[in-house]
């Protein structure tokens, strides 16, 4: 970021630009949306590596039946920390990092609406993550060695009560999520205010890039869903320390109540994570197909539709808790309906590719991988939506395979794609395409070895969250294949990390618009100056740079 600090020198304190300490001060005190975005992404990458390492340990343990490399308690901590970290401290911060960086640039604004709130939101989320990991040292309080939480990422009652979770490990879990939630809501407020109030002249809502539309929907979802989660965490604290009995079944509380609170957050959360992945696809697929996105209004409608419908499907996580046939039927229907707007999106991406001129950059390769894998993830989702099928598959490895198909096959693939696409904008240098192709193919092989074959033990009756399994169930061969894929994924991820570091120093100089793209972020330097645009741009269509490059056939007349 050396160049960007130099450019911003005349705005910030010039004395703050000498030496490592000064650079550190600069990063810690920054309120620039681009730097905060990069902070979000960097911390998310660190947590991603940590949680990925936890997954690797679990796969080593499950490689053969009746293995004893890892104690059951340690294993339970591993999957709890893996899930919690990936969702709250890798996934959401990564996606908010991109949102922070891109939303103001794409709407021609100079910063987010509330820069200080922005910095506050990042730091409180970040320290939430640090607090979670501090539990490894302090989870048991003053007595005994520390321990991380072991209640699972959805922390079902009554395992979280003090009877079953003595010490403070569960408190670390609760408080870190509470903190992360505050940061998440702060950033969501910021994105909504920024998109609604700070668009440049000419950028009507109907001309807003689809990425910005999706971040608007995501932020609205955050308001509705983080609130019940936060409320539930406070109720849990009251249960644990003030003798409330919301979830304390020993005193007449309800375990099912926690499930409702958690999943009314937990399912929309999936869409909070996946809609930004759609957002990246909406920008990257058209550029490398050299065509405008097909059906912009339908894409907006489908996104908003998914946002609304996603609020009415939560209890499909509870098909086996005995809700009775009526609710089971309702949530089956609601969940299946969400396939319709999701299908519309896939078809529109397909139509965008159709008749295009597809360039196989690494960014595009990851985006195409996303399309195929998201199609499969969607279809296994339809299977799980059918509640009788879910009675068999729920809580089995089939579910684990399904949601990793979404979280890795769709979301992580699009995050990689987005890095290859926007890294040149953020650093001024291109990521190596040669290393990128190695990264892509190794990751694709690893992904499919792991997650395709992970469906099978689920169909054969293997439940999730077990630290070991019986040898006579026919699961061993499948688990061996699954674990071997994890090694490919780990190597590919390390290659990616190396590419990020190496290209920062040695990458090809990008220039302002390396992909011949069409949205406003490519109209300024790479990396952009702290004020983004010397002159506030004015737009007349959804693709302002297309208009500039093709004055003979501007977009405006077709919208």
């Amino acid at each position: 970021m050396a160049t960007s600090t130099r450019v911003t020198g005349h705005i910030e304190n010039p004395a703050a630009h000498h030496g490592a300490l000064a650079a550190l001060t600069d990063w810690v005190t920054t309120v620039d949306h681009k730097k905060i975005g990069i902070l979000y992404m960097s911390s998310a990458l660190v947590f991603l590596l940590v949680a990925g390492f936890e997954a690797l340990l679990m796969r080593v343990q499950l490689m053969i039946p009746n293995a004893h490399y890892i104690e059951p308690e340690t294993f339970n901590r591993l999957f709890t920390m893996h899930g919690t970290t990936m969702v709250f401290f890798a996934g959401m911060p990564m996606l908010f990092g991109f949102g922070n960086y891109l939303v103001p640039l794409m709407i021609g604004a100079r910063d987010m609406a509330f820069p200080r709130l922005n910095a506050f939101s990042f730091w409180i989320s970040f320290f939430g993550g640090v607090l979670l990991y501090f539990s490894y040292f302090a989870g048991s309080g003053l007595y005994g060695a520390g321990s991380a939480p072991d209640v699972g990422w959805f922390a079902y009652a009554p395992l979280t009560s003090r009877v079953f979770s003595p010490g403070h490990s569960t408190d670390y879990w609760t408080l870190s999520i509470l903190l992360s939630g505050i940061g998440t809501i702060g950033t969501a407020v910021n994105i909504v205010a920024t998109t609604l109030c700070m668009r440049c002249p000419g950028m009507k809502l109907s001309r807003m890039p689809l990425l910005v539309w999706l971040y608007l929907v995501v932020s609205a979802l955050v308001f509705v869903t983080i609130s019940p989660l936060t409320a539930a965490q406070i109720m849990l604290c009251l249960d644990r320390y003030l003798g409330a009995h919301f979830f304390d079944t020993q005193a007449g509380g309800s375990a099912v109540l926690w499930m409702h609170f958690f999943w009314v957050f937990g399912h929309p959360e999936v869409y909070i994570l996946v809609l930004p992945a759609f957002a990246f696809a909406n920008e990257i697929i058209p550029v490398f197909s050299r065509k405008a996105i097909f059906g912009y209004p339908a894409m907006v409608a489908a996104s908003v539709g998914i946002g609304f419908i996603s609020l009415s499907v939560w209890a499909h996580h509870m098909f086996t808790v005995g809700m009775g046939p009526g609710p089971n039927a309702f949530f089956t229907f609601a969940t299946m309906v969400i396939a319709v707007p999701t299908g519309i999106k896939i078809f529109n991406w397909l139509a965008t590719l159709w008749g295009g001129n597809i360039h196989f950059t690494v960014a595009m390769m990851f985006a195409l991988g996303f399309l195929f894998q998201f199609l499969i993830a969607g279809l296994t989702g339809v299977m799980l939506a059918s509640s009788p099928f879910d009675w068999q598959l729920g809580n089995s490895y089939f579910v684990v395979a399904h949601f990793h198909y979404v979280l890795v096959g769709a979301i992580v693939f699009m995050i990689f794609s987005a890095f290859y696409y926007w890294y040149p904008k953020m650093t001024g240098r291109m990521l190596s395409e040669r290393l990128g192709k190695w990264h892509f193919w190794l990751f694709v092989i690893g992904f499919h070895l792991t997650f395709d074959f992970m469906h099978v033990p689920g169909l054969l009756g293997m439940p999730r969250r077990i630290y070991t399994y019986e040898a006579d169930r026919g699961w061993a061969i499948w688990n061996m294949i699954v674990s071997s894929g994890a090694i490919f994924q780990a190597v590919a991820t390390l290659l990616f990390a190396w590419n990020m570091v190496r290209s920062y120093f040695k990458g090809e100089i990008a220039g302002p618009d390396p992909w011949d793209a069409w949205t406003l972020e490519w109209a300024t330097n790479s990396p952009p100056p702290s004020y983004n645009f010397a002159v506030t741009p004015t737009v007349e269509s959804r693709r302002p740079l297309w208009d500039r490059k093709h004055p003979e056939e501007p977009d405006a007349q077709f919208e």
Partner: protein
Amino acid sequence: MLSCLAFQALGVPAAASVLVHPARIAGALAVLFDQSSTSIFAPQAAPARSVYGLSLLVLGICAGIFLVVGGLLAYAVVRYRHRRGYSVREPAQIYGSNQIELSWTVIPILIVVVLFLASARVIFVNQSVPKPASTIDVTVIGHQYWWEYRYPKLGIVTANELHIPAVDPKHPVPAYLTLTSADSDHSFWVPRLAGKMDAIPNKTNTLWIDPQQPGLYLGQCAQYCGVQHAKMLLRVYVDTPQQFQAWVAAQQKTAVQDPAVAQGRAVFESNACANCHTVSGTSAHGVFGPDLSHVAGRDTIASGAVVNNTANLRAFISDPATLKPGALMPAMHLNDRDLDAVTKYLSTLR
């Protein structure tokens, strides 16, 4: 079936549609999955069978959709790839089409309606069946990390190995299980008999099964319930009516009182054992752990974790953590003499 129709409608050659014919899929799956004793594709009771039938329909439709959409996607990626010598001009810009949008909205809605109706039928077939008066009633209570089975009509309390009679196909009367939990959430899942149903504290759920084929059906707890969730295994013995009658008669008897092992019984009753376990006809009335009145009649101990033999029993009594780390029973710290005596005593409780 629907996928076949869809294929024919799209003009795909008949050979391709035969490939995804449900019967063919069933055959292929059967070969692939027969190796496992817990496969959901080898149902042996009506609830599992109804889910199996539905799963073939859902899998068929999804496979059809995958082949069509994935095929189009693959075609587009290959056909429209950038080629050397492509003119510098951009391809024609197409912004959308309302007719096309409408078609790929309506067709998925129709598919969703079909899938929903098929699912709803199976939901109500399974969950709206009144309990027949003559059923075998079993109360299943999940504990950390074992299963308690109570037969209120027969006056039997046992643990970890559920016995039910095979159903007579001429007069099918399913067995009814009422599920609840003594501590955290558990889930009862024996894939070849039925889908899973959770056992939740302060709540009762019901599940029915009607296996006709005698035999042993395996499964395990399917809801994370604490440290030893992995070794909370399920064993359902479907007995012939004669076997079941004999089993009931044996269970209804008071525990064997063999004077040869009186010393072991004394150790059992004078140590903490009696606080948590029951042995009928003795002063041991604990209810925290499994009822041991007929423990020697079981094939396994520690909820299916290990085979029930003298060596395992002795090791488990000495320190359960060696066989099942996380089990709530503490190490008993008995001396070798007491350990041998109590092991011998428990081995007589058939």
